[in-house]
């Protein structure tokens, strides 16, 4: 039960990391807010969002059809499609391809789904060298840590820290200067690109109409990953589909604006099949591994909206909780509001605690480019956890291997008792009377000096007012006498109205 809170406390204690993360996410959020303002002024935002949402919903509502169409088209242009029910199967499929190729070196573009299935570790364990080529991801690989943000893996590191990581891992002195550090990484990565036999990427979108993979990137590393090695492997979640190129337009317009505040990323790359006769570059083989990993269970359920996510990271930047605790506190591949929503559903188990990391402020929902009602889904998860029924409307029952830990017995009894007391006016009033009397010994100057039961956690860092000895409902009769005339000087409930005064 305490795993999450312990991680949170540890992250909160790391001031350097918190400062770097908070500054960068706030900057990202402000850039997105500026973009939304601009699009609102141009009267485009609402319609772009609705069209983006509609495109994704179309693909999700008719998922089987579009997935079949996508697979047929990938095969038609010479690619191979592999379906994986879970992460372990996806890993095995990739390992088999790499083994068949006889590859010793694999380069990777940034991909959250490969993080989700632990692909790099699995490949490394079989003796294959794997190199992350996205700069942030490269830094995290050198540091030996998972990414802390779905679009900005090293967002929590200061420039000084990155220089230190480079010094230690690459054995080369480098000034604390982003350009110099990038140049160093570029130099080191170039030889890897040239000698790798396999390149692995994720997918931002998969276009059913043509069987194309669309990658939205800034560094050009994905383009080298997909064009230099002889074999290319794409790992994608099965929710990444869009029906056609026309429906991609609003999504491509919104994704960079929501993610980094850019109008457009530096590269938008579409890959349709392996190299054809007469073409000078591109891979000889193209494999697409389509991962279910619990996703299909959400199709048709009340959580389907979460599959619409395009992984822009906008909700992470907006989230006031993420701002404080950073991505590692979540202990999951996906963090921030979208991580809070999908991790319990995909992974189960103790991930059901993640919805506690939300103050239900709704800024994520307001920011989301594809209208995922994130904070409402978080409330749904809490309700399911309270009822002990995960994904009740899903077509298949939840995986029995993913038990749902309920809320504590004490908490459940507290809410039951509360509902019994406050569902009746007389009992409610009696409870307020009782609370104020019980608080008397603890009250000093109108505040509690010590904190009973559920208030103990409040009291560790904040004061709490003592319940009023004369609550408002007990003052109403006097207020009525005051009448409608203006008589501001008249005291309502004269005398000490609060314990300890």
């Amino acid at each position, binding site marked *: 039960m305490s795993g999450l809170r312990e991680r949170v406390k540890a992250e909160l204690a790391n001031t350097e990391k918190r400062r770097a993360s908070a500054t960068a996410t706030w900057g990202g959020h402000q850039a997105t807010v500026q973009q939304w303002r601009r699009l609102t002024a141009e009267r485009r935002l609402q319609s772009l969002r609705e069209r983006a949402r509609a495109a994704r919903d179309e693909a999700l509502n008719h998922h089987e059809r579009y997935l079949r169409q996508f697979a047929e088209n990938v095969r038609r242009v010479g690619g191979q499609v592999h379906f994986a029910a879970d992460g372990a199967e996806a890993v095995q499929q990739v390992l088999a391809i790499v083994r068949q190729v006889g590859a010793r070196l694999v380069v990777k573009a940034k991909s959250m789904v490969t993080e989700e299935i632990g692909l790099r570790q699995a490949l490394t364990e079989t003796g294959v060298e794997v190199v992350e080529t996205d700069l942030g991801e490269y830094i995290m690989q050198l540091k030996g840590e998972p990414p802390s943000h779905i679009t900005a893996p090293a967002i929590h590191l200061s420039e000084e820290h990155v220089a230190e990581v480079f010094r230690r891992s690459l054995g080369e002195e480098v000034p604390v200067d982003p350009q110099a550090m990038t140049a160093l990484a570029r130099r080191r990565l170039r030889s890897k690109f040239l000698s790798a036999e396999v390149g692995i990427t994720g997918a931002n979108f998969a276009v059913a109409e043509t069987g194309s993979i669309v990658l939205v990137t800034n560094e050009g590393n994905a383009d080298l990953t997909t064009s230099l090695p002889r074999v290319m492997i794409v790992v994608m979640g099965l929710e990444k589909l869009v029906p056609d190129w026309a429906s991609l337009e609003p999504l491509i317009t919104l994704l960079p604006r929501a993610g980094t505040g850019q109008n457009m990323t530096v590269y938008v790359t579409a890959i349709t099949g392996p190299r054809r006769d007469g073409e000078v570059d591109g891979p000889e083989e193209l494999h697409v591994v389509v991962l279910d990993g619990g996703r299909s269970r959400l199709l048709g359920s009340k959580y389907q909206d979460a599959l619409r996510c395009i992984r822009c990271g906008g909700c992470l930047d907006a989230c006031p909780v993420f701002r404080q605790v950073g991505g590692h506190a979540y202990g999951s591949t996906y963090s921030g509001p979208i991580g809070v929503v999908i991790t319990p559903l995909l992974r189960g188990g103790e991930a059901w605690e993640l919805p506690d990391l939300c103050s239900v402020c709704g800024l994520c929902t307001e920011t989301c480019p594809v209208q995922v009602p994130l904070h409402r889904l978080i409330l749904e998860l809490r309700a399911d956890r309270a009822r002990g029924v995960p994904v009740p409307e899903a077509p298949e029952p939840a995986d029995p291997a993913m038990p749902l830990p309920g809320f504590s017995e004490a908490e459940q009894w507290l809410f039951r008792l509360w509902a019994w007391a406050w569902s009746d006016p007389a009992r409610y009033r009696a409870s*307020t009377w009782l609370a104020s009397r019980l608080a008397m010994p603890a009250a000093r100057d109108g505040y509690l000096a010590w904190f009973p039961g559920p208030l103990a956690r409040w009291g560790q860092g904040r*004061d709490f007012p003592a319940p009023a000895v004369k609550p408002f409902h007990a003052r109403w009769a006097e207020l009525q006498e005051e009448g409608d005339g203006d008589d501001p000087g008249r005291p309502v409930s004269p005398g000490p109205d*609060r314990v300890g005064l």
Partner: protein
Amino acid sequence: MSLVATCVVDILWPEVAVSTVRLLRRLGCQVSFPEGQTCCGQPAFNAGYREEAARVAACTLEALSGSEDEYVVTPSGSCAAMIRTVWPTLFADQPERQAAARRLAGRTYELSEFLVKVLRVDLRALGARFPATVAYHHSCHMTRELGVRSEPLILLDQIEGLRRRPLERADLCCGFGGTFSVKMPEVAEAMADDKLADFEATGAEYLVGADAACLIHLQGRLRRLGKTARVMHLAELLEQATRPGNAGGSAYDKRPASSADPVKGGAR
């Protein structure tokens, strides 16, 4: 109109409801207080306990439905949001209650929203005066669920002598968040510290808001840190600014009675 005091105000900060009643009467409203009301059920709803929330909400729904008042007004953005946006969905399996909740949703308002949209008050005409610098905290549910953002500012800007200072990062939650504030107290405190830092940066004398729970959270943090900034509920500020003795702009006591400390009760 019917007043929903809210449980937080009823028990922890009754002065807010007293101010609301006086203010509304001063503006010509007939205020009633349906006495069967307890709580809107929000703490349980946000924690996932929907059955428990519905049981408690039903009690308050019944109290409010019994009244023939034209409007329901509450000095809380999040309770108004609960009644207006959640209640109609909370009684999905109880058609009669759901119908009552829908009717109620159509006539329920947060205080500042009621003053601006329904009463269309002009506080200038009342000679409202409050010579102080004020930073207004936008609470989340009021802003994003109810869509009430400009109304409190419109009212504050009608008050003579009041200088409003915008809060940086105004969209960020203060960290209260219902049960979140006891389940993740360290995060809630860190969020409060950010909000309070932004408040201190404004140099304003008062931190004003329209949700008592957020303010109690922020005030609790301020007090624990030994700071003396003043937290005030919008209802209190508006009531004090519109007091008849104050309207002439004569000798006005710059220390509003109950606001040095939101919960400390006023020596009126």
